[in-house]
């Protein structure tokens, strides 16, 4: 048909040829209308696009419409029907291309949605892991804090305990000291108490302790010594030296012996009252250490004495 048309185009204007041309045109060997040209192009484009795979039904409909238009063009090229069919065919082709593009976009969207869900899931998992890690860290932290608090509480309890003990000890000491002071106060009538370099020196008047020339303790002395012994027990001590002293009258050997016997008697009584014998030493010093003159009865009375030298516990 195209060949004939070209032939017709290239001819001169002889009456015969004009007749022949009109005959050919009359037979349908015509130039296709623009609608059909557009329809062919649109269909070719649609076939190249995603419609072939994603909208085959629509593409087929477009194909049928184009065939119909072609058939109409074949039989009646210049008819209005051909132009309409071609017009419709072009729209069908464009529509099928649009449906193909729509499906393609929807697929892409579905894929993106899946990707989104996947990313979100991963993110959630990550966040969960992070949360777990943070929780574990916090738990460790609070364990440490709790352990620290417990240690502090223990230390506080220990300190409080120690304080209570100290208080008790202090009280006990104060009590003991009080007792000793009281004992010493009651001893005042029969002796004195002094702090000296060699220790605490308790001096007991011999006249109160013993009868003349005897070394048995008088009953009053016993009860006084009991108080002294109790006070010393409460206080605690390292060592006690008990010294017996006499005045210078009489034979020195007898004096030495008597002074020792008297010191021993005091020791025996203190031990009987509960003091440790191994910590107590009794010595007889006779008249060798007078504290007053032996020329007057008062001086001699002062020289007749027993001294307890207490080395305190420290």
């Amino acid at each position: 048909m195209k060949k004939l048309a070209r032939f017709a185009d290239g001819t001169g204007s002889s009456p015969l040829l004009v007749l022949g041309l009109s005959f050919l045109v009359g037979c349908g060997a015509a130039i296709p209308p623009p609608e059909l040209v557009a329809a062919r192009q649109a269909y070719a484009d649609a076939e190249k696009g995603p419609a072939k795979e994603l909208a085959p039904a629509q593409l087929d409909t477009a194909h049928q419409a184009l065939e119909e238009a072609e058939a109409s063009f074949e039989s009646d090229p210049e008819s209005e029907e051909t132009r309409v069919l071609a017009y419709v065919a072009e729209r069908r082709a464009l529509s099928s291309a649009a449906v193909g593009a729509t499906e393609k976009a929807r697929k892409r969207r579905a894929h993106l949605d899946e990707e989104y869900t996947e990313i979100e899931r991963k993110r959630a998992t990550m966040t969960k892991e992070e949360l777990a890690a943070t929780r574990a860290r916090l738990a460790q932290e609070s364990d440490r804090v709790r352990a620290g608090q417990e240690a502090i509480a223990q230390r506080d309890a220990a300190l409080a305990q120690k304080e209570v003990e100290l208080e008790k000890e202090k009280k006990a000491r104060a009590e003991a000291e009080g007792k000793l002071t009281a004992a010493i106060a009651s001893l005042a009538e029969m002796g004195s108490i002094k702090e000296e370099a060699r220790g605490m020196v308790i001096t007991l008047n011999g006249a109160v302790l013993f009868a003349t020339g005897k070394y048995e303790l008088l009953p009053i002395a016993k009860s006084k010594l009991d108080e002294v012994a109790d006070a010393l027990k409460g206080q605690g001590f390292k060592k006690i030296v008990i010294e017996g002293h006499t005045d210078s009258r009489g034979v020195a050997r007898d004096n030495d012996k008597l002074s020792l016997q008297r010191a021993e008697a005091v020791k025996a009584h203190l031990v009987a009252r509960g003091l440790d014998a191994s910590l107590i030493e009794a010595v007889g010093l006779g008249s060798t250490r007078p504290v007053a003159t032996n020329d007057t009865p008062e001086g001699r009375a002062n020289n007749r004495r027993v001294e307890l030298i207490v080395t305190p516990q420290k």
Partner: protein
Amino acid sequence: MRMSFERLVSWGAFSMVVACGGAAVPNKELATAQASVRAAEVGGADKSPQAQLRLKQARDKIAEAEKLIAEGENESAARALRCAESDAELALALSREHEAKEEAEEALKKIQRLMEDSKS
């Protein structure tokens, strides 16, 4: 061949009918075309310029067809209505394509936002 008077008359009447457009008023085609236009409108054809153009063509063709019907040109009107229907269908297809592409674009943006959120 001689034609009877009756036959002549009936032939003449037939020719007259053909000359006047011959066919009946294309009510069915009109209804179909109008329905297609409404479908395209509901389908969001006004959101895409391409679809808008096709929708306008469909409406123009319907208007043309109505004019032709008024003139008694029913056959031409039917043709115009077939064209209008195909235009409206194309408008709908294009608006769906536009919508699907926009949704895909939105899905992509959503992912990008998520990625940015993850970074911060």
